[in-house]
């Protein structure tokens, strides 16, 4: 009963987000600009100058999973701001005053980030195909990609909501969001192989959940070698569960 209630309320909170996107999908398009620039400019230039050795794949192939993961990271890492904004409005207070279990409000919000992340990923995917980037298009691989994208969004949005419980204001959240995105992005294997990094950065990349998301996406989209998938899912999954639990304990601090 309780489990069913939790799942059903999480889905309802996520449904709210899906309905918002349906009423106003503008953000999906404006958010496409940055990944498009990464692929079109950065990707094309580095492919042609062959500065980074990514054999057997072209550099453009190599960074496509990285850019997918990065754009979803960017959507999710600012999710704490949405929650703070909804607190300022009174919407969060109202959500928490329903009998829905507290955990499901947080899980629902992170699923909502998953919804946005997924729509984002579909658009980047289409863009990659238009650019003629060779990717594996087996339905099961695509399903795996979308699953990882949703977990990726849940992972970083719950981290963001956990921080929101501590920081409590939009300005602080904006600051911390900006301070975190670049280290997470550059401190991962998204745009260059970990082996090319200095040692200290390698150890950072090894504990960065984004690296495991990208590694998993590469397995689905490029290599078809699933040997790392259990580890990737385990790392991102455990991180997500820990963050979700922390965030649902902390979210009440926002409305107290």
């Amino acid at each position, binding site marked *: 009963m309780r489990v069913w*209630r939790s799942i*059903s*309320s999480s889905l*309802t*909170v996520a*449904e*709210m987000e899906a*309905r*918002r996107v349906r*009423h*106003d999908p503008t953000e999906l398009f404006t958010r496409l600009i940055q990944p498009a620039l990464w692929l079109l400019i950065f990707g094309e230039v580095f492919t042609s100058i062959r500065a980074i050795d990514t054999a057997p794949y072209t550099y453009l192939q190599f960074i496509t999973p990285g850019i997918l993961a990065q754009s979803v990271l960017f959507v999710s890492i600012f999710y704490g701001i949405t929650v703070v904004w909804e607190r*300022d*409005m*009174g*919407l969060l*207070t*109202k*959500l*928490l*005053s*329903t*009998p*829905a*279990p507290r955990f499901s409000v947080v899980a629902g919000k992170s699923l909502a980030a998953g919804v946005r992340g997924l729509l984002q990923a579909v658009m980047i995917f289409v863009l990659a195909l238009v650019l003629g980037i060779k990717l594996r298009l087996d339905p099961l691989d695509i399903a795996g990609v979308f699953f990882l994208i949703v977990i990726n969004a849940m992972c970083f949005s719950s981290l963001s909501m956990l921080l929101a419980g501590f920081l409590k204001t939009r300005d602080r959240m904006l600051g911390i969001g900006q301070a975190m995105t670049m280290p997470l992005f550059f401190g991962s294997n998204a745009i260059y192989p970990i082996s090319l990094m200095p040692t200290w950065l390698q150890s950072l990349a090894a504990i960065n959940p984004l690296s495991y998301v990208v590694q998993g996406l590469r397995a689905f989209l490029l290599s078809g070698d699933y040997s790392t998938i259990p580890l990737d899912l385990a790392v991102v999954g455990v991180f997500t569960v820990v963050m979700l639990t922390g965030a649902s304990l902390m979210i*009440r601090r926002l*409305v*107290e």
Partner: protein
Amino acid sequence: MAASELHSSAPAIEVEHLTKVYPPSIRAVDDVSFSVDQGEVFGMLGPNGAGKTTTIKMITTLSPPTSGLVKVFGVDARTHPEAVRSTLGYVPQSVSVDSDLSAYENLLVFSKLFFVGSKDRSERIRSSLAYMGLADRADDLVKTYSGGMMRRLEIAQTLVNRPRILFLDEPSIGLDPASRLSVHESIKRLKHDYDTTIFITTHDMGEADDLCDRIAIMDAGRVAALGSPDDLKKSVGGDVVTIKLARGEELPAIPKQMALVSNRNGSTVELLAENGDEAAPQIISFLDSKGIATESVSISRPGLDDVFLKYTKKHLEDSEDAARANQSRRSFMRHAN
């Protein structure tokens, strides 16, 4: 615990020695005790910062009390928070509808979060919207609504749960007089039609007077006085003598046995007197003897304003700035999109 298991004879709310201390040592609510009967409209009146919203948050289980007991229909809020939340509807002070969705969608989401069965949902949403006079705008995005309509929608949103108790935090803040009136009418209708227990916080005397069966006057986290509006006014005793001075000059000390100055606003002076009819001519001749001319005099029964003054030694108007800030937020919210 289902709503049906709640004690039908218990008071709607019982609060004992409720205290909330915010770190480091701000006593937002300080040893407050009261109870609210089923079907009653109970008001908390006080300036911003008096602890009204914090009290609501503790009763609605949003914020854990530092100490003290809260029971809603006999159910302990601390041990059964979800059972308590399933009986109530809460309209927070700031806008709590999603302006990016339609009215129908807002209610749909909340009917699901209140676990209204899928068969009943559509009918309950339609009837809640119709009850609050919003049926014809059901499919419009909420961002196109006026402030008053948003307030009514927020109440409609709680009605999908058929709440036994409704919490309204400053229900008419930032509303124009016509919207305010329509919100007041809805509140009275809810009490009349469904015998819903209603808990209101307000800093508006008129609102408390108009709506509430009983009022708790809050000041600095404590209940300064509690009773029906009439009893509270009677407890002030005497009459209010309002004198308009011909010129806005300095007022000499008026003898205490004659009357007490309770308020001065420009050239208008309000005084509390045991018997207004006797005191008024005395005050005028006293002022006359000091060379101060009076333009007009009126005598009235004390209002809640005077009650507030008597129990807190403060004027409620001191909180007006905060109220204005809130009002601008609401209109900002409406135009942000």
